[in-house]
């Protein structure tokens, strides 16, 4: 399955288009791209495992480097890197072991059983059978926003969450499509990588916030103001300036368009009904209600951008998600 990707807005056009159907930019053959629809899921899994490993490695390197810097500045010697190592080991363990619970509680998701939400749980059971993935835990977020996500360490630890708004406004076939998409993320092990990104990146951001505050308030009253408080501040500012784009890049990696499109294709394979997911995406795209409980660290996990803050034409350049119109078009062409 090939598509022509618009160089300006990133829209996936069908191959016979001469101009982009979203922003009318002329298309030439160079941007033609094979959309990996039939990639074996074993390959996707091993890619995700490698990504998860490098992510953790990167976190260790980053924090320990920061520890050295602090050890130097505050003349505490090797206590800095040792503390940093301890912090990174503990965060990784917490992220790996309890990431699901953390993500669910940040998102305000409540666990539901078959007795409380028969239809939703039944649909997840159906998709679990269709995909051969063990039955995940089921959660509901009480909000009118329309969104859904999956998380967990591996398929045995999987969990899916859906908002009340989505559950109320979609038909059974459409919910099946959305849940099949989430099952595909579980089967592809996308959930592990995106969970680690969410929790670890969240931790780094939190630590940098602490440091900034410590710089501003904590040090001001204490002993050595002459010992270059300004210089320290400058170094931290530079460090943050360097790290921020890398973090952003990581989050984008976690939701690369390929990942979402492959999950869409796999969902169509599970339900044998691409139209269900396509019309669900249409309804999700038409809704303008923001999801309040989504944060920058968890936004990439959702089926569509929970902030809704990108205009149609710029979306592909900045957004963590592929434009919803592209996905609908590809699903309808299956």
């Amino acid at each position, binding site marked *: 399955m090939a598509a022509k990707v618009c160089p300006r807005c990133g829209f996936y056009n069908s191959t016979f288009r001469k101009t982009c159907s979203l922003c009318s930019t002329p298309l030439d053959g160079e941007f033609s791209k094979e959309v990996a629809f039939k990639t074996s899921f074993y390959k996707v899994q091993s890619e995700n495992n490698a990504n998860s490993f490098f992510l953790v490695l990167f976190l260790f390197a980053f924090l320990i480097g920061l520890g050295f810097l602090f050890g130097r500045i505050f003349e505490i010697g090797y206590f800095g890197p040792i503390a940093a190592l301890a912090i990174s080991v503990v965060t990784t363990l917490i992220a790996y072991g309890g990431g699901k619970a953390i993500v669910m509680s940040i998102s305000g998701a409540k666990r539901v059983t078959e007795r409380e939400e*028969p*239809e939703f749980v*039944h*649909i997840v*059971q*159906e*998709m679990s*059978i*269709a*995909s*051969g993935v063990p039955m995940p835990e089921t959660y509901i977020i009480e909000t009118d926003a329309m969104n859904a996500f999956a998380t967990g360490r591996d398929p045995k630890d999987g969990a899916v969450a859906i908002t009340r708004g989505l559950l109320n406004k979609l038909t059974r076939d459409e919910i099946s499509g959305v849940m099949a998409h989430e099952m595909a993320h579980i089967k592809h092990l996308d959930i592990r990588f995106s969970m680690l990104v969410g929790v670890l990146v969240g931790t780094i951001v939190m630590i940098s916030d602490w440091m900034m505050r410590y710089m501003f308030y904590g040090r001001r009253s204490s002993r050595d103001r002459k010992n270059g408080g300004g210089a320290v501040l400058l170094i931290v500012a530079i460090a943050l300036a360097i790290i921020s784009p890398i973090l952003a890049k990581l989050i984008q990696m976690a939701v690369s368009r390929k990942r979402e499109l492959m999950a869409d294709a796999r969902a169509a394979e599970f339900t*044998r009904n691409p139209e269900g997911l396509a019309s669900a995406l249409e309804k999700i795209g038409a809704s303008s209600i923001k999801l309040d409980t989504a944060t920058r660290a968890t936004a990439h996990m959702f089926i569509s951008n929970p902030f809704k803050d990108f205009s149609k034409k710029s979306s592909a350049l900045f957004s963590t998600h592929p434009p919803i119109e592209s996905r609908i078009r590809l699903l309808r062409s299956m």
Partner: protein
Amino acid sequence: MAALLIIIGIVLVFGFAVVGVYNSLVKEKNRVKNAWSQIDVQLKRRYDLIPNLVEVVRDYMSYEQETLTKVIEARNFAMGAKGVKQQAEAENMLSGTLKSLFAVMENYPQLKANENVMKLQEELTSTENKISYSRQFYNDSVMQFNTMVETFPNNIIAGIFNFKQFDFFAIPETEKQNVKVDLR
């Protein structure tokens, strides 16, 4: 001496390759068997649910005794069916009668108000879906296994250890025929 070592090395490499292929064949075969047993689990669930639903709706639908009897008969027939072909036909007939029961139920608004009925209907709808998804998953697993058994060099090892291809779950002929609609 060196020649002997080389021969031992080659034999070892071949041995490991055979063991690897054999183990993955066994794994895939068990997956197919598990997929098949999943279908039975769902069929059993349907047999259990139908009498409950009929019992609950009977009071409301006194004029529809015939439909209800047909459902129960189809269910009993399916439970007693022998052989794959008869079983498939019976299951198919049961699905048909259930569909007509659901259609008739639409005419009774008071049924929609009954929480018990709604719950049972949702359960049965989901079970119907689960039956077809588990058949689909079985067929997907069979296709994967059969491809594995057929491709080289697995086919040699499969031949030696007598791994046979599985049959697909075929849709019964009656289901493939177009529905004749009589509009008069």
